Each structure stands twice: as structure tokens, then as C-alpha cells.
């Protein structure tokens, strides 16, 4: 019956309204977190800039380090991909973008006969690669929206360990770089081994042309400093990537939730229209029935018909 349809529509509108409240709340939360995440990205810049500078100074001073992190392998057999995604969904194409980029890279490598291992950061990456039967090494989760340096350190130590032990010959970072609140891009950056190009590339500016180092005094010798410095440098790179990813995640989530809220509004509008029409239809039908019934009673006077209606409604 018409009245039943109206009730169903009312229920649907209520449920869409509830969903809209949730998406709206998530949108606002994400929006406020973008700002915080952006500040953290900015706060990490001085450290990574300075550590890059120190690495350059040391390299220029001919710190002929024997650090295994600097020595590239002649034959790159196994590549470790550190894939940074979110722990949760509801953030549009954020996770999918990173996963697709990493998967494409892995497939291309496999075609050439190279081996790989996935180091999944964030629950979504882990689920994605495990489900599809990829080799997943270590996994890290639980901090994608608010990473700390300790997390970067943990990941860094693990990948450097893998590299030094010879289990992998190359480590690549795949994450989403935060350019501004309106634009982010999925990037892939080589992490280990560090070569001059890697050091200069960083996550910021290129190396300046001068490259002339002042005559530094070193304590202890340059090689030892470099050996302790390089792990920190790798960690700082990972930390920067984690922060970029977190800021991007919030930006993606905000956009996704904004369009979800807009869609919910649209849906509510359409459903309300349909509901109003249904209600109007049922009222019209009812009136028609009453009128029809009264007519059927045999063309009585106006007065009788009025009594009839009053009787119906008081019932």
C-alpha cells in the first residue's frame, strides 16, 4: 500500500541522515588533523635538512667509509619495497594508489626475473598484499595517522638489517608525498643503498653546485662519524615519508568524506521528494475513496456527506 512505501522511505532517509552525520564528523576531524600533520611535516624539515648537509660535508671530505649502506650491489636480485599505506579505509583512492604503484613495480621486476619482498606499513597494505599472495616480510601497523620517530627507527633498523645481512640488495620506499592540502602524489624513492644521487635527491632540494667543503675537523674520524650517521639518515628519510603519508591520508580522507556528505545530502533530497509524492498520492487516493463512497450512497444532499466525513475521522 501507499502508506507502507512512505514509511519505508522515511526509514531510509533517517539512515542516510545518520550516515551523513558520521561522514560529516569524519570530514571535520580529518580537516583539523591535516593542519597538525602539516605542522609535523614542517617540524621535521630542519633535522632532515641538516643531516643531509652533514652527510654531504662528510662525503665531500672524502669520508671513505666502508659502511655497507653505501656499497651498492653489482647484481640486484631482491628488492624490498616499503609500502606505506593507512590502517583504515574510508579515504578514497589513497590506499589503492600506493598499492597499485607498488604492485606494478613488483610485477615489472618479477617479469625481469627479480625477487622482492614487501614490507607493509599500515594494515591496508598488509591485507592487500597478503590476500593476493605476495611475499610479505615484516609488517607494521597502528600508527599510520600519527607516526613518531620511534616507528621510523624500528622500520629503518629492520630494513638496514635486511640489507646488511644480504637478504635484500635494494630497498625502495613507496608512499604518498604531501605537496599541499589539495595535491598529493604517489612516489617511489630509493632508500638503500645510499649513493651520491640518493643523498642529494632526498625529499627536498638537490645538491648545490659548489660542493666545496670547508676544512672540517672531525672527532672521531670521518669514517666513524659517517658509519653512525648513515643509519640516522635512513631513519630520517623514513620518518619524513611516514609524516608525508600521514598528512596525505588525512587530506584524502577529508576529500572522500566531503563527497560522501554531499552525496548523502543529494540522496536525502531525492528521497524526500519521492516520499512527499507518495504521501500526496495516498492522500489523494483516500479522498477519492471517500468521495467515491459517498457518491455510491446515492446522490444524497451535501449535508449527509459532511456527516459521513465527520463520522470517519472520529473513528
Amino acid at each position, binding site marked *: 500500500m501507499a502508506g507502507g512505501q512512505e514509511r519505508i522511505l522515511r526509514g531510509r532517509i533517517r539512515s542516510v541522515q545518520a550516515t551523513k552525520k558520521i561522514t560529516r564528523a569524519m570530514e571535520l576531524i580529518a580537516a583539523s588533523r591535516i593542519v597538525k600533520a602539516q605542522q609535523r611535516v614542517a617540524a621535521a624539515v630542519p*633535522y632532515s635538512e641538516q643531516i643531509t648537509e652533514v652527510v654531504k660535508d662528510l662525503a665531500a671530505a672524502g669520508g671513505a667509509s666502508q659502511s655497507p649502506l653505501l656499497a651498492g650491489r653489482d647484481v640486484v636480485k631482491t628488492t624490498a619495497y616499503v609500502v606505506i599505506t593507512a590502517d583504515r579505509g574510508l579515504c578514497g583512492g589513497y590506499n589503492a594508489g600506493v598499492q597499485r604503484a607498488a604492485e606494478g613495480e613488483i610485477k615489472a621486476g618479477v617479469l625481469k626475473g627479480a625477487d622482492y619482498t614487501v614490507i607493509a606499513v599500515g594494515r591496508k597494505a598488509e591485507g592487500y598484499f597478503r590476500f593476493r599472495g605476495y611475499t610479505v616480510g615484516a609488517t607494521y601497523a597502528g600508527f599510520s595517522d600519527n607516526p613518531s620517530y620511534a616507528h621510523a627507527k624500528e622500520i629503518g633498523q629492520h630494513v638496514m638489517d635486511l640489507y646488511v645481512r644480504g637478504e635484500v640488495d635494494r630497498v625502495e620506499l613507496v608512499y604518498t608525498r604531501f605537496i599541499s592540502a589539495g595535491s598529493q602524489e604517489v612516489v617511489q624513492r630509493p632508500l638503500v643503498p645510499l649513493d651520491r644521487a640518493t643523498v642529494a635527491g632526498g625529499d627536498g632540494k638537490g645538491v648545490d653546485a659548489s660542493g666545496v667543503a670547508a676544512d672540517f675537523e672531525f672527532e672521531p674520524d670521518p669514517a666513524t662519524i659517517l658509519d653512525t650517521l648513515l643509519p640516522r639518515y635512513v631513519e630520517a628519510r623514513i620518518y619524513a615519508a611516514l609524516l608525508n603519508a600521514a598528512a596525505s591520508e588525512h587530506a584524502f580522507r577529508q576529500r572522500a568524506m566531503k563527497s560522501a556528505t554531499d552525496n548523502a545530502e543529494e540522496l536525502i533530497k531525492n528521497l524526500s521528494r519521492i516520499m512527499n509524492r507518495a504521501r500526496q498520492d495516498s492522500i489523494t487516493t483516500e479522498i477519492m475513496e471517500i468521495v467515491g463512497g459517498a457518491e455510491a450512497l446515492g446522490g444524497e444532499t451535501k449535508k449527509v456527506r459532511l456527516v459521513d466525513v465527520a463520522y470517519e475521522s472520529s473513528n
Partner: protein
Amino acid sequence: MAATMQVEVVSPERVLFSGEATQVVTRTLGGGEIAFLPGHAPFLGALVESHTRVTLADGQVLDLAVHGGFVQVSGTTVSILSDQAELADQIDRPRALRAKERAEDTLRREHDAEAAAALARAHARLNATGGIGAAAGAH
């Protein structure tokens, strides 16, 4: 006015301190304590856990606990990069005391690199907040 230099103490998460100073004392790996005055020759060093002191331009001394890292002196700037550094007023002294006792306890029984590192960190924290000697009576 005495010559000053720009001093920056930077951790990965933020800039802890940035300002003008007349002297910085810290401790390098294998080299012992070292002081930098304005005009120091370019210098690069790896640091160990230490109580680092920065004498500000107005004569005040800023105490820090620096747990490893690097120091770079170039031109008129001294930068201390540390993945773990704390200003004295952010240090939880009772907690550092407890950590010190725990580490000493462990070390009495066995040699443990982690405990030794924890002890070094506790010492740096205690020194930065009044010294280890004062610690004995304060608790």
C-alpha cells in the same frame, strides 16, 4: 658585547632550541667533553649521551640531556642533531633516578649493553637537572 654564535638543537620531531649563545659544551664519541666558542673552526663530531650546556647570550645556561647524535660547526652556527634530546625542564627526574637504579641493578648481575645505555641516558638526564650527587639525597 661579546661575540655570539647561532646555536640550534634539532631533533627529528622538532627544533628544541634555536638562539644566540656564547658557549656550547657537549661530549663527543671518544673525544671527551668539548666546548665551542664563537669562531670555532669547522667541526663535525659524533656525540655520546651527555649533559650538554649552552651558555646563552644573556649569561643564562641552558641544560640539555643529549642522547647521542651529531654536532656540526660551520661558520657562526653550531648545530646539534640528536634523535633524542631533552631540555632540562622536560626531564622527569624521579623517573631518571629510578631508571638509574634499575640499570645499576642489572649491571651488577650481568653485563648488558641495553642497561649500560640506559644508565648513560639516566646519568645525562640527572646531570642536566642538578647532578647525580644531588640525586642521592633528593629521594
